[in-house]
């Protein structure tokens, strides 16, 4: 039993962590939290199921197409819901514009795909074992993303440019960095990461439109607790969240587990609004 809680908890935790990283990648590029983060995860699962199970494509092709779909959705988010409201960041219009876009995608999926959860195909044709692919796939995806991002940020020119924009947007633009193109690239990257989360966790979460709001919320918990923009904090908080949720699931049952997660989330946030790892000094005047 403990073994099952740990493997499920860690796997789900990895998915939450990936969605949290999706939030962070978008946030670094634009100072905007987008409600479409969970929608990207949902899209990864639905597109994977669509391409592989329904249209019968090879796994590799379906995988790449699902990621491409996520990238497109990320770019659409940037163009439609983020760029037009960046001028007036202090009015927080982005909260509404990204919520609107997330709802549109979610409803479109519900109507055109299905309102019921659809099965997600098994990716590797190997027998089910104790430590099944539905558990290690999300973990592998999470590890790949963390290592990949680290390499990208540390060792490539475009990664340095991303960091420069995240650090100081105006200065980066003054240096002649193509801020707009880099922001679009960041959103495309976030789209790929979000879709990867949904794809890797497809077997667990199924291809279901209502995963969007669920992932939007649970994916944000690690962002808030780990400190915004802090990917390492997000991974740790994501894994803890997954374990906590599965334990609560086992002890008090599914619905009260979500009540427990919510309560802990609120209490921790009220006690430390800047997250467990963050530090905040705000300039008011």
């Amino acid at each position: 039993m403990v073994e099952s809680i740990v493997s499920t908890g860690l796997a789900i935790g990895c998915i939450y962590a990936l969605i949290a990283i999706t939030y962070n990648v978008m946030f670094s590029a634009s100072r905007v939290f987008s409600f479409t983060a969970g929608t990207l995860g949902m899209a990864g699962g639905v597109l994977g199921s669509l391409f592989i199970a329904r249209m019968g494509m090879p796994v590799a092709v379906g995988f790449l197409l699902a990621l491409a779909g996520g990238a497109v959705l990320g770019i659409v988010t940037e163009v439609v819901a983020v760029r037009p409201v960046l001028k007036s960041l202090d009015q927080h219009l982005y909260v509404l514009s990204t919520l609107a876009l997330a709802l549109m995608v979610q409803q479109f999926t519900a109507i055109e795909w299905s309102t019921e959860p659809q099965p997600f195909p098994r990716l590797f044709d190997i027998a089910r074992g104790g430590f099944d692919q539905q558990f290690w796939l999300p973990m592998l995806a999470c590890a790949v993303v963390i290592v990949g991002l680290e390499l990208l940020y540390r060792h490539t020119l475009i990664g340095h440019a991303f960091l420069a924009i995240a650090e100081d947007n105006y200065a980066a633009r003054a240096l002649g960095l193509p801020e707009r193109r880099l922001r679009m690239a960041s959103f495309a990257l976030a789209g790929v990461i979000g879709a990867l989360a949904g794809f890797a966790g497809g077997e667990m979460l199924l291809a279901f439109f209502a995963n969007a709001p669920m992932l939007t919320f649970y994916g944000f918990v690690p962002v808030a607790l780990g400190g915004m923009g802090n990917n390492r904090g997000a991974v740790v908080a994501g894994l803890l969240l997954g374990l906590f949720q599965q334990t609560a699931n086992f002890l008090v049952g599914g619905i009260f587990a979500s009540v427990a997660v919510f309560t802990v989330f609120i209490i921790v946030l009220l006690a430390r609004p800047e997250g467990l790892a963050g530090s905040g000094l705000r300039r008011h005047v």
Partner: protein
Amino acid sequence: MDTQATQLRPSRADARGTVSTFGTALPFLALLIVGIAFPLFGGGYWGVIATRACVYWVLVSGLNLVVGFAGQIAIGWVALLTLGAYTTSVLAAGNVMPALPPYLALAIAAVVGAFFGLIIGLPALRLRTFYFAITTLGFATIVTQVALAWQSVTGGGVGVAGPVFPEPFSSQWGFYYFCFGLAAICTWMTANIAASRFGRALTAIRDAEVAAEASGIAKPALLGTVFLFSGAVAAVAGGLFASLQSYITPDAFTLDLSVLFFIAILIGGRSSIFGPLLGTILLTVLPEFAAPLVAWSTFLYAVLLLVIVLVIPGGIAELLDFKNRRPLESERAIIPRPDLIERLLGAAPDAGALTLEQVALSFGGVQAIDGLDLEIRPGRVHGLIGPNGSGKTTTLNVISGYYAPQRGAVRLNGAAMPVLARHRRAHMRIARTFQTPRIVGSASVLQNVMIGGTIDGACTFVESLLSLPRHRRDEAMLRDTAMLALAAVGLERLASVRADRLQHSELRFTEIARALMLRPSFLLLDEPAAGLSVDEIARLSGLLLAIARAGTGVLLVEHHPDLIFDICHYVTVLNLGRTLAAGTPAEIRSHREVVNAYLGG
């Protein structure tokens, strides 16, 4: 001169008051008549739609104060509708205890709703916008899940029967009038709040939080009260909703409803009552004309939300605001009337001196101020000058309570001032202006100035809600004082203009008028002359001297040497967070180090 102004001013303010009250009440009266007469033309099904619009408005009217006025993005407000619906239904049906009369059940639901409104709202006091939005969303999901799971009470997925209100409200039209009456009362109450110091304070929290704090507005208490009210009416709406549906299941309370409420407010426009009211009616009626699109309704709402945010962030209210589209006079001068200052400020109580003793503060490795001594005395203009980064604004921020000094103390009349309690400064009659004017752009100039007098109102939130005599006295007093303050700074002709249409220099004088509303013992001015023309600076000098003559201690942070040397009684020169020199303007002007470091030549 003085008597002339006395005769002039109140009559003008009165005339404006009457006209605007009548003008704004007209559309409400029209809707009231249509609403009362509705059963004469409406068929049975339209009766249901009209009742539903009333029920939704009861909720939206309260949410409007949270979203439209206070600017808190509370997306999951449907949770309170759910709570109210289940509380009323369960208590009236007697699932858990002996059945209660529906009215009592509805009243208990209101109390429960108020409590949970506060609980949902609390995070808004601590958290950033997106965090708050997502916690309300999470709360909405949780409430629905609990309704689904708690079968013994809520009936789970099967649901529970809604309450039936006894005669005369049991028939369709009887129930309609019941809901319509409540909706009308909610409209009246929220309109009262909107026109009160509480409504103005909410918009100040939304658009100019630091100015709200500087005016003594306590955000936690005010927002808490609004969340209580908003939660209560939302739960009442829930009880009515359950009765209208006659049977409720958790499916009835989807997030779509939340989105609908939210859009109604956005379509209507911020800081408006009539706009969101129209928005609610529109959104309730619209789907009836688009039956084939029912499956797509949420999708279309989302599209609508996106379009409003991107195209008309001001909503209907701004589209209908013809008055503010008339061009303003382009050649207009600010002519202050320093002679009015004494009447405005009255006899200043002797506040002693405001002193800084060896105050030090560093940010990371930067020593912003390093052992600063300062004494601001009543009736004097004290200049604080120095190069950029020498710690001038930081000094102001320490006095205003934005930063806690790491060493040293700030004292008022010998007593140490509480650290970091920013809104308490106004109660000590310490007012300030800001380097970039902090103004509520969508409110009129007069309303902006009235914000400055918020703490001088005597009535409570409930009195304002019901427009009791004390509320009306407060409003008349604040309006008169604000008109006087505007006349004193020379802006009374722009009183009814939207503040975001003013020029930069006019905003600076508006801020001074707002600060004067506090009848300050000490007035802290952060570069008031920045961006002003030479003429305007001269008029500002006269105004500031008059303020000091009335007994107020003025701390003037400035870069304009002329202004400083013309009007200051005493000047402190800062460099790298330390006092470089202090003395009378004449002494400073001949101080060699100051001339080298700062004045040049």
